[in-house]
């Protein structure tokens, strides 16, 4: 079922936790709400569930305005970060809770719970108590419990926040498969950008209670709509440059910026892998010194200090790095192949600009 949020705001006393947020979750979609802690994403989720009431704005579930419906009437499934399982009930009783509240027949409850435990990969654990389960198993019980009464939408608050990194990866893949199978409209909150990219069909980036960007993971990554998104998703070098005669200058770097008036300050962003490095100081036009090399597992991050004192991060895949001979402290040359003039606060995104990639020699 479709979820639609229009002009949603929430004040806690004099603090505005959510300001004027609008978005739509399509039926059957798995959408991630991504943002740093305190960015208002959980509050949005709780307002959709009915656990908080909005200060202004409307919420629609399946075309019906639900603002005035109680939590119980909204028929949503909610999964809490810390599982919130009923400790004094067995796994079976936990999963059966929503059905027994609805006075479902015993045999139907038993069939549905057994089916869900099977689906969750927890067969035979019905008699256990929550404290006898691992973190990952508890979270799956929590999801089974939320799904049991067949909710119209599933809301998950940091679903994997409380489990080990290893289990988290497993659970992510499992959630994707589960969603493919059930196709229930799902909205999940996370502060982990990697998780959001991997799990979501589309994602929404939040900052300070505002919606910064909504789009496919690749779109958000490749075309960040705001400087915040550029900084938050992936890693980006960001420098501030002054425009003079259609070119933005910072130290000895120059970036074409034809649409800006003289004296305008712009922020230029470029991803680490858009800095090409050579151990030959004359291969590219710009010169620098290699400050640090960090091993990242699948790649290396190289930190360089330019002749004029800028510190930039470059990234090189493992094979390439091993074929070359880089030593910390040695002079190198570099070129920035792509850059982006980052949008000012909430102005529309500007397309990325590609610099000619051929080595420029003086």
């Amino acid at each position: 079922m479709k979820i639609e949020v229009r002009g949603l705001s929430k004040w806690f006393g004099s603090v505005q936790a959510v300001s004027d947020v609008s978005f739509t979750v399509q039926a059957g979609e798995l959408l991630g709400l991504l943002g740093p802690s305190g960015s208002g994403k959980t509050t949005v989720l709780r307002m959709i569930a009915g656990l908080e009431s909005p200060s202004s704005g409307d919420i629609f579930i399946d075309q019906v305005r639900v603002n005035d419906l109680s939590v119980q009437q909204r028929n949503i499934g909610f999964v809490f970060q810390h599982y919130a399982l009923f400790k004094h009930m067995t796994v079976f009783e936990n999963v059966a809770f929503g059905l027994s509240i609805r006075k479902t027949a015993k045999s139907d409850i038993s069939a549905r719970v057994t089916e869900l435990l099977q689906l969750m990969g927890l067969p035979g654990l019905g008699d256990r108590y929550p404290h006898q389960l691992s973190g990952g198993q508890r979270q799956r019980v929590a999801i089974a419990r939320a799904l049991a009464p067949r909710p119209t939408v599933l809301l998950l608050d940091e679903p994997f926040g409380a489990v080990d990194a290893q289990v988290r990866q497993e659970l992510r893949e499992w959630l994707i498969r589960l969603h493919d199978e059930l196709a229930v409209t799902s909205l999940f909150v996370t502060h982990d950008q990697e998780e959001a990219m991997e799990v979501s069909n589309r994602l929404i980036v939040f900052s300070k209670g505002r919606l910064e960007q909504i789009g496919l993971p690749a779109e958000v990554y490749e075309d960040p709509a705001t400087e915040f998104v550029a900084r938050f998703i992936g890693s980006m070098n960001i420098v501030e440059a002054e425009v003079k005669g259609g070119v933005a200058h910072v130290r000895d770097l120059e970036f074409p910026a034809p649409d800006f008036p003289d004296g305008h300050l712009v922020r230029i962003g470029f991803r680490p892998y858009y800095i090409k490095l050579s151990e030959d100081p004359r291969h590219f036009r710009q010169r620098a010194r290699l400050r640090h090399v960090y091993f990242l597992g699948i790649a290396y991050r190289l930190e360089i200090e330019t002749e004029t004192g800028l510190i930039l991060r470059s990234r090189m895949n493992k094979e390439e790095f091993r074929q070359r001979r880089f030593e910390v402290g040695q002079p190198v040359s570099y070129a920035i192949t792509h850059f982006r003039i980052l949008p000012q606060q909430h102005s529309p995104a500007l397309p990325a600009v590609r610099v000619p990639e051929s080595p420029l020699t003086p």
Partner: protein
Amino acid sequence: MIRRLLIFIVWIYFSVLLIGPMAYLCVQAFGEGLSVFWREVTRPEALHGFWLTAEITLIVLFVNLVFGTITALVLIRQRFWGQTFLSGLIDLPFSVSPVITGFMLILLFGPGTILGTWFGAMDIKILYALPAMVLVTVFVTFPFVVRELTPILMAIGTESEEAARTLGANEWQIFLRVTLPAIRWGMVYGATLTIARAIGEFGAVLVVSGNILQLTQTATLHIYQSYVDFNYVGAYAVAAILLAVSFVILMILELVKARSSTVGETSLRMVNS
């Protein structure tokens, strides 16, 4: 060497303070034979005292469980004006002498006061009757249930109650099926402490009851009266019975502690860890 000395000191301390007096009490109670003991504890005055004590204890237990639970829930879960003030008052009954508690009630319901006159006109006896004895006992035992429940309620948080709400449960169902099971061992613990204190209460009850024979004389008042009347065996015998009851209560407390820590539920010990 020092270790042994310390163990020895602890043994002496326990013996002088607890074991010795209790043993001596039992010896005295049965000193003149089982039949004398039986005669003393089945005297009409003694039986009435036991009955009255039981009556007061049961009423107090009920009042404290209901209002103690409501108080703890409201103080932990709601935000309201004067909350800090009320929270600070919870322990007050522990620091006020029971005798003073009794006097406060006399001042409130005495014959010359507004409340006293009103109840007098309605022909309802408060002072020197069961209502006053129940009131003072509720006062002195009020903190037990509340103090047991507040840390448990804080520790369990509101997430599982919210989860129940999203699953369609109404507030009453949430309380019965989620909150109550989570706090039940704390309630049992608080109830046991309440019973122990209610049975043993003396000072406050003495002040407001008037200590009228066979009417407002509880078991502890009966012990006091027997002692004053030089009926030592009578005093010791009834005291031994109360001591036995306390012992049983202590056993129950230990069982509750063991139970609440093995089940893996949030209560008592887990709250402290």
